[in-house]
């Protein structure tokens, strides 16, 4: 199985297969001696050439984070045979969804549909645990849609607005 992997934006080509409990692994053209056991659904005990690692997988909204020891990495995995959905993550073009990073309550909406926004422009204020957090636009553009109203409860990952 061939994968295109992105780790904190760094690209890898990974060829991985398993037979009789043995793994075959080639990372960016280099063969590695790999052995893995899924200790629990999100915990991987990984050995690479006798070095041992415990990897934790974490799903936050639509993102996948992998923890190697105490270092966290944003990970993306693609099937390179698929033509779609690759290489656009770091792209600034196209509409962007602004999502809530945590559950909370919308205290104020700071912009309206059709507004011109700059990177860092405030879109809304969300309160959780008695602290307020301003949700900002990640890029320059036009506020295409606002999907929340004041007083609404939001969950982590909910789309709050779309910037065109």
């Amino acid at each position, binding site marked *: 199985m061939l994968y295109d992997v992105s780790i904190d934006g760094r690209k890898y080509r990974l060829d991985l297969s398993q037979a009789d409990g043995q793994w075959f692994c080639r990372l960016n053209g280099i063969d590695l001696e790999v052995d893995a056991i899924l200790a629990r*659904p999100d915990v991987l005990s990984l050995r690479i050439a006798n070095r041992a690692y415990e*990897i934790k997988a974490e799903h*936050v909204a639509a993102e996948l984070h992998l*923890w190697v020891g105490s270092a966290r990495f944003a990970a993306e995995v693609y099937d390179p045979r698929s033509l779609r959905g690759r290489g656009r993550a770091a792209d600034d073009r196209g509409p962007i969804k602004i999502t809530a990073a*945590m559950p909370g309550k919308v205290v104020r909406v700071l912009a309206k549909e059709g507004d011109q926004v700059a990177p860092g422009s405030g879109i809304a204020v969300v309160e959780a*645990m008695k602290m307020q957090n301003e949700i900002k636009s990640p890029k320059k553009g036009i506020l295409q849609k606002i999907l929340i109203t004041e007083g609404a409860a939001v969950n982590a990952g909910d789309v709050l607005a779309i910037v065109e």
Partner: protein
Amino acid sequence: MFKKILIANRGEIAVRVIRACHEMGIAAVAVYSEVDRASLHVRKADEAYPIGAAPAAESYLKISKILDVAKRSGADAIHPGYGFLSENSGFAQACADAGVKFIGPTASAMQAMGSKTRARQAMEKAGVPFVPGTSHGLESYEEASAAAAKIGYPIMLKAAAGGGGKGMRLVSGLADLKSALDAARSEAERSFGDREVYIEKAIVNPRHIEMQILADEHGRTVYLGERECSLQRRHQKVMEEAPSPIVDPGMRRRMGEVAVRVAQAAGYTNAGTVEFLVDQQKHFYFLEMNTRLQVEHPITEIVTGLDLVHLQIRIAMGEKLPFKQDDVTIRGHAIECRIYAEDPDNNYFPSPGKITLLLAPSGPGIRRDSGMYEGWTVPIDYDPLLAKLIGYGTDRDQAIACLIRALNEYFVGGIKTNISLFRRILRDSEYRAARLDTGFLDRLLERTKIKAPDSDAADVAAIAAGIFASLGVASGPARTGAGKPSGGQDSSKWKATSRREALY
């Protein structure tokens, strides 16, 4: 003997008190708000009663509801934990009126310590050291300069009617006094309609050190040693240790004896904490008294070998303290990390949500007091303290080593926590040299955090990502826990990641 105790609290402290009850053969009654039905203290209690909506004002702060549960359940006593109603003298009085024992001091002792002016009067009589100052308004520049000379610079000008930093000026020498006095007076006038200001000695880079006391209802009061609480962010303690690295046996005895005098002057009973500011010459000054169990009580338990909650309950049952001052010994070193649901990469903003994976440390030198579990959703409505991790050892270095090891084992998936902050602190050379003061943490956080680009670890993550994907077993946040059935959709997230398109 109490047969049943109601715990008027939630989270880790409710669990901690329930455990003490069970150890003493006492039934534990939990109360919970609407969003806390799945909380750990409800799971662990013998009885559990709903007391209303999520906002504390409608549940955990609602005296009538809590007393109603006490009555319905037949509880003999109420333990308030910390926060919520724990320092509310009205609640203590209402318990007394309802014939339920409040596990803490009497309402009048709480009032005596609650009012700053009453407390100061009582403390002055007891010979308790305060930050030197004029404690009355300054009539003139001449009076001010004389007083400042006597106290010694730097000094602080403070508005008598003040608060919140208004009308306050730090003055480092005589040259600045005149203009600072004028500025402080006019700011005080504008802010409070009262231009009176007074002088207090400015404590530069103070330490915050507190002394634990216990007083029974038969007149015996003892001190159990100090806790170093200088590591604070926004005036909130983050990490505490016992003993303080700068307190030697002589200083401990002097501080302890002052703390005992403070408690006795207030007619104090049960567990309490006397807070001090300590300057760089190790002079200590009374700050205030906390009339309850502290969050950080476990570190005192470890270095003294005593159980404070057991002792609180025994004192409330009318027992005499089972030891004398001379029997109290301090051995070893203990450090507490307050594990909060907050995001270190986003200015420590609270980060509630569902805990999808929990790997908790244990083993030698580790105590863990926790209110969380895997599958639980941290509610957004309360203080984000999830758990306390306490490391201990023969000495401070060993306690630090143990904590770092345990923090590396600790993993809380699905929400953000401040675990990484403790790793940073514990590895800091200033911290390891015990050069602590209340500004330490702000200075540490101001320094740019350099994220070492660890390309080896990134390679490992790349391989792990592929293996997770090929096993098809990773799971979304809804996999397990509280109210939601598991199974069936575990691989969907991976598909979402590998197949998503557009809009990004």
